[in-house]
């Protein structure tokens, strides 16, 4: 649809201390268009959005809502909303203590005689949500509903408020395939209504499924704007990375490790935890890279955590290298040679104000115990070793780790666990939110570790990643381990079938 321009950003620049976040970036959005905004970490995607919605100020350039109209500067999200720009973020930006109806209408509640008209508000809320296939009790507090539902309610709110521009900032990260499809249906409806949608995402498949245009940013600069159907995937990735892409192929060849020794390193029988993961049996051999796949919420992280003692299991038996162990806490697991890279690095991994060095040696220190502090010389040696090994980009060992980019932070946490010399390493979404270059490095590292005899459990939502690195896969569905796939069966079709269960679903 050749449509009028509904948002035009020209020459936008923004500097943070020490970093040029945006360098003369242009961005154009037309009505009835779903436009993807893509780039690796540090590309400037979120900064561009923040500048547009008034969360940050920009130093130069101009923003216009329509051709020929005045330039605008948004000083706050509220002002942006008044200009017709609504945003839905990855974190559910709603208030858990308020009811669903309130969350939808707060700030613009229907009133009667100057006071809020609750009855009308509840009615309108129910209507709005049923239009989007959601039939829930709008008077209950938001926190009673799942994160996925909360996300959709957030989108419903934005949709109700936004006239011209809807920004979706990685909205699908916590949604399962069904919910993503619902979202896409909604987006297409809005597109038909003439709304311009900016879709910020990492998921290549989703971009190709639903977007008309793609704008790629890299290191704060504009790489280009493209029509989706005219841009092959490989080229897109190349533009995002700024280089050519053979590395991933290399993995495929190196990938499959032998891992065929006799004794299982991990022998779990009937381990389960009420309400979290149904009892499962799992045997893992030394040097294997075993993947856990399944839909969002199928219990992969929960399984990993139940092995590690992060969530204490209430049934079952665990043998590590032939010896029965009882793992009640992460410390027990660590002493048994395990290591666990959590899914949520910001909340469960990074100790933001401590230095890179301190973050790296922490797990090892915890393993050695409170009365055996690691001397500063040894700390430095170990830290340097892993900074080098993982190519962690940091100004110095004493830089607070919060100054590092997401990808480098992830490397620090990985380094932290590698430092403990584990026999069994659990990686839960190690490449989520990471730029493609680092993703490759981590995958290569996993394969390398397996070759050296470390057993690895690899959890990822990107099936391709797991196919590349795993020698075996366990499949989960609805908090239950349902099957295992051996090396020969590791391709997308087999995996999808195993996840879906009897036959193909939608």
């Amino acid at each position: 649809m050749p449509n009028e321009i509904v948002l035009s950003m020209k020459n936008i620049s923004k500097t943070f201390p020490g970093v040029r976040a945006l360098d003369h970036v242009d961005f154009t959005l037309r009505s009835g268009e779903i436009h993807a905004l893509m780039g690796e970490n540090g590309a400037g995607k979120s900064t561009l959005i923040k500048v547009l919605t008034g969360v940050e100020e920009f130093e130069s350039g101009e923003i216009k809502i329509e051709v020929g109209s005045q330039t605008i500067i948004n000083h706050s999200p509220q002002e942006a909303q008044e200009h017709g720009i609504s945003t839905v973020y990855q974190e559910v930006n709603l208030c858990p203590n308020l009811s669903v109806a309130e969350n939808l209408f707060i700030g613009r509640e229907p009133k009667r005689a100057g006071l809020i008209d609750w009855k009308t508000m509840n009615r309108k809320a129910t209507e709005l949500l049923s239009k989007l296939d959601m039939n829930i009790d709008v008077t209950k507090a938001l926190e009673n509903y799942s994160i996925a539902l909360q996300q959709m309610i957030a989108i419903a709110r934005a949709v109700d408020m936004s006239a011209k521009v809807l920004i979706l900032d990685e909205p699908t990260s916590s949604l399962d395939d069904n919910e993503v499809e619902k979202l896409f249906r909604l987006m297409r409806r809005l597109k038909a209504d003439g709304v311009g949608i900016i879709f910020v995402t990492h998921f290549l498949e989703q971009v190709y499924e639903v977007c008309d245009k793609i704008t790629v940013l890299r290191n704060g600069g504009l790489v280009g704007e493209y029509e989706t159907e005219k841009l092959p995937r490989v080229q897109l990735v190349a533009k995002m990375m700024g280089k050519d892409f053979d590395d991933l192929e290399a993995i495929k060849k190196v990938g499959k490790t032998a891992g065929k020794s006799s004794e299982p390193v991990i022998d779990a029988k009937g381990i389960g935890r009420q309400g979290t993961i149904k009892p499962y049996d799992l045997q893992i051999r030394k040097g294997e890279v075993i993947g856990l796949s399944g839909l969002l919420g199928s219990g992969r992280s929960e399984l990993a955590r139940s092995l590690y003692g992060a969530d204490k299991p209430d049934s079952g038996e665990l043998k590590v290298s032939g010896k029965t162990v009882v793992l009640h806490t992460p410390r027990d697991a660590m002493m048994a040679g395990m290591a666990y890279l959590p899914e949520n690095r910001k909340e469960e991994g990074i100790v933001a104000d401590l230095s890179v060095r301190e973050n790296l040696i922490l797990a090892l220190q915890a393993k050695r115990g409170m009365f055996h502090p690691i001397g500063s010389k040894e700390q430095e040696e170990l830290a340097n070793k892993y900074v080098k090994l993982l190519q962690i980009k940091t100004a110095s060992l004493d830089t607070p780790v919060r100054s590092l980019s997401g990808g480098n932070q992830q490397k620090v946490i990985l380094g932290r666990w590698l430092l403990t010399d584990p026999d069994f390493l659990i990686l839960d979404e190690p490449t989520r939110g990471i730029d493609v270059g680092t993703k490759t490095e981590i995958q290569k590292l996993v394969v390398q570790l397996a070759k050296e005899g470390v057993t690895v459990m690899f959890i990822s939502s990107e099936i391709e990643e797991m196919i590349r690195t795993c020698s075996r896969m366990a499949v989960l569905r609805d908090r239950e381990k349902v099957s295992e796939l051996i090396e020969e069966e590791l391709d997308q079709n087999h995996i999808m079938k195993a996840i879906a269960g009897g036959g193909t679903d939608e």
Partner: protein
Amino acid sequence: MNKGKAFIKRLTGYRLFLPLFCLVLVLFSNLIKTPGFFEVTIKNGVLYGYIIDVINRASDLVILAVGMTLVVAASGGTDISVGAVMSVAGAVCCFILSGGQQSVNEFVNPYILGVLAAVLAGILCGCFNGFLVAKLKIQPMVATLILFTAGRGIAQLITKGQITYIRVESYKMLGSSIPGIPIPTPVFVALIVVLLTYVLLKKTTLGLYIQTVGINAKASKLMGIKSSMIIFLSYVFCGLCAGISGLVASSRIYSADANNIGLNLELDAILAVALGGNSLAGGKFSLLGSVIGAYTIQALSTTLYAMGVSPDQIPVYKAIVVVVIVALQSTELKRMVSKLQMNIKSGKKVA
């Protein structure tokens, strides 16, 4: 000229710069009213002078501040019961030493017993607070509110509503001085507490753990660090410090005055931690900063006394100082200032 600028930037960048600056400022402002402020003489074999008085009287607060620092760092909360715990500790000690009587001229029970009892009382109170905060996950300010409200009442019950006097020379020594040693005892005690704590933090990994737990408790758990134990210990330690401080305070007045021992000191202790550049939200901390903050507050009080302000009225000035300093440290203010600077700069460019 540039070298000078760079030097100033480096100087102000030091973590302890602001606390030290404030301390020096307050000390020198004392000089205005009291020209002989820094004079030190020896009277009766003990060091004597205004500055000595400040250091001496600050000792109770310094000990409290040490404990409070760890609580703030590990849990991001504050223990407002420390004043009341001081009172309880003093009451317990005097109760034991007087055998329940209102006034004695010699120890009914051994001195060491009274000391141990007081310290134990402090530890027990710390355990109570620690249990509520670490195990039941109750907000620190609220959890400690309970002892804050009930503590003095309990002390009153122990002393049966009266002030218990211990008129024994050796009891007073803790609060004043030991014969033959020119430095007043409280100063010693404070120094020892600070040093021991410092060693404890550095030689074990406690310092690192406290910071880790304070910054990201979840992550610390996954790494095998028992965050609830660390938090619990910090409150126990704070209670211990309050117990020791209560002993010193009680010894100063050789009695247990349930209403007045440690009165308002909890507020001073929190301020000391804040003035020391420590974030009240927890995480990274500087023990030295809190110590400097404690001396600053005491010096400030002295300045005000010299200007004729009565003890009742001093809080007004403390309040202003505190708000100014905390505001200056606030990141929001820094953000506003830098924004202002940027606006001025870009304004200049246009012109």
